[in-house]
């Protein structure tokens, strides 16, 4: 199968993630959409690695997975703290800071 198709798939996944971040209201779902964007980038790296014929992209994917895992730790800590304070993870409710 032509590896360029995987690049197109990754672009679709990335766009889905980006739209999800913009339209969803649950902090956990928003965060999952961000993870989807990171994984779309991973797919693109691996596909381009195949197209370019070098292994850089595959190695990069491992680094990105580690970074994404670290981001999950920090992100869930913040979201859980917000949930314990407000009993809700809606990103519309924290609205004390504006203008």
């Amino acid at each position, binding site marked *: 199968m032509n590896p360029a198709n995987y*690049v197109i798939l*990754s672009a679709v996944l*990335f766009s889905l*993630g*980006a739209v999800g*971040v913009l339209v969803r209201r649950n*902090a956990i779902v*928003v*965060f999952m959409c*961000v993870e989807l*964007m*990171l994984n*779309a*980038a991973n797919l*693109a*790296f691996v*596909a*381009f*690695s*195949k*197209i*370019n*014929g*070098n*292994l*850089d*992209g595959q190695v*990069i994917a491992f*680094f*990105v997975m580690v*970074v994404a895992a*670290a*981001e999950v730790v*920090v*992100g869930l*800590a*913040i*979201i859980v*703290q*917000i949930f*314990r*304070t407000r009993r809700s993870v809606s*990103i519309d409710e*924290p*609205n*004390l*800071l504006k*203008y």
Partner: protein
Amino acid sequence: MNPIAVADKALFEIPPLDYSAIAPILILLGVAVVSVLVEAFAPKRARRPIQLVLVFGALIAAFVDVVTLSGLRTITASGSIAIDGPALVMQGAILILAALGAMLMAERLVDPSGDAFAARASALPGSEDEKQFTARGYFQTEVWPLFLFSVAGMLLFVAASDLLLMFVALEVMSLPLYLLVGMARRRRLLSQEASLKYFLLGAFSSAFFLYGSALIYGFAGSVNFGWIADAVSGKTGQNALLLIGVAMILVGLLFKIAAVPFHQWTPDAYQGAPTAVTAFMSTTVKIAAFGALLRVLYVAFGGLRLDWAPMMWIVAILTMVVGSVIAVTQSDIKRMLAYSSVAQAGFIMVGVIATSAAGLSSVLFYLIAYGFTTIGAFAVISIVRDSSGEATHLSKWSGLGKKSPVTATVVALFMLSFAGIPLTSGFIGKFGVFAAAIDSGATWLVIVAVVASVVSAFFYARVIVIMFFSEPNENTASVVVPSAFTTIVIAAGATVTVVLGILPQPLLDLVNNAGLFLR
């Protein structure tokens, strides 16, 4: 092509590392790990003194190391890390400002109930637990390892010469900051909200950076800046992968420098964060992010200048105008300084767009001058207080000039420097970037910038007017006497602001001798 066959070309040989060149980064990372262990094993009472010794020791050692490396111009780790003049200047500046930020974070006298951070970040705001922890005098010393990791990430960010390392450094720098923002002792709901917003938007923008890197990798076959520059100069015609990739990478970096339209996190994070953290991150992150932006634009995509310059023009104009105009309407001084930092980012971008040696050195000068003024200004905000904590609403500053003349004069000095009045560092900085931009033909951009800085002078002057030309009333905040830590920071900020305004030559020589980025 069979990837296994390609791997035979010894793609996995160990990259040669010049350990002495990256020693400052290694020192900070090593001490950060030790600092985590101290949190795990040291008794509660002993943690703070041990952490302070570790933090300041690490910052001083790293700074001394940067100074001894000052003549070094090298690329190491298979082209991934470039230790060159601009990188060393920015590393030195980041270390000094981080040390000043650490002093503000270590301050314990201004708040009667403890330091700037929640007694236990895990206790619910307003709960019985929180009251008990505060009453028992608990302190959250975990901020110190987070702080060290963040500074190490910044040092790596300005030296990163490949997109993968830049992404990793970006996250090492940002992830601890997301947490630090959410740990304020007072107004914890605001602080947690700021942390959530900063985190979600930050993660969103770094995903853009990463996907842009993937597209550039697809175009160039490597994420190394030297390779990318070669691929860019060898290309013919327009290439969608390349252009979309550059745009997405710029989205990630412009978010970090708080350029419009990627600035929405700035006022919230700056206002909600503990003021010590705001002071730290508003100065050092700005330097680190501009360092990375300069390196990406000048080294990797220097050959694409005609393609990215129009986009940067639009972003710079929007940043200056929107930042200045919205700052005029603010009534909270931390939020006003946040929009001011947006506007200042626009002025610095004018120097970036110049794409010349003069542009690079003037941006370095501006960043350092701006950093000292900003950290001094936030340090003063942390000591102007009333019964509810920091008095950040501007109405509480009315008459401060009569109540506390010295403090008000120092604030006035910082405001004049932000506005770019002669004999302050802000004037030399603005003059440098505007002159560099005119030399490279961006006259119209400079005209917009001058108009925007006139608008910005209005809200800086308003603070001075509020302090000196109105009478103190019962709402006027009072100035708390801080410990030596905060006093040193304010004194350093004010001294550098004046000295760089009157005798800028030593720093100008330093940034001019820094030379260009290595490839």
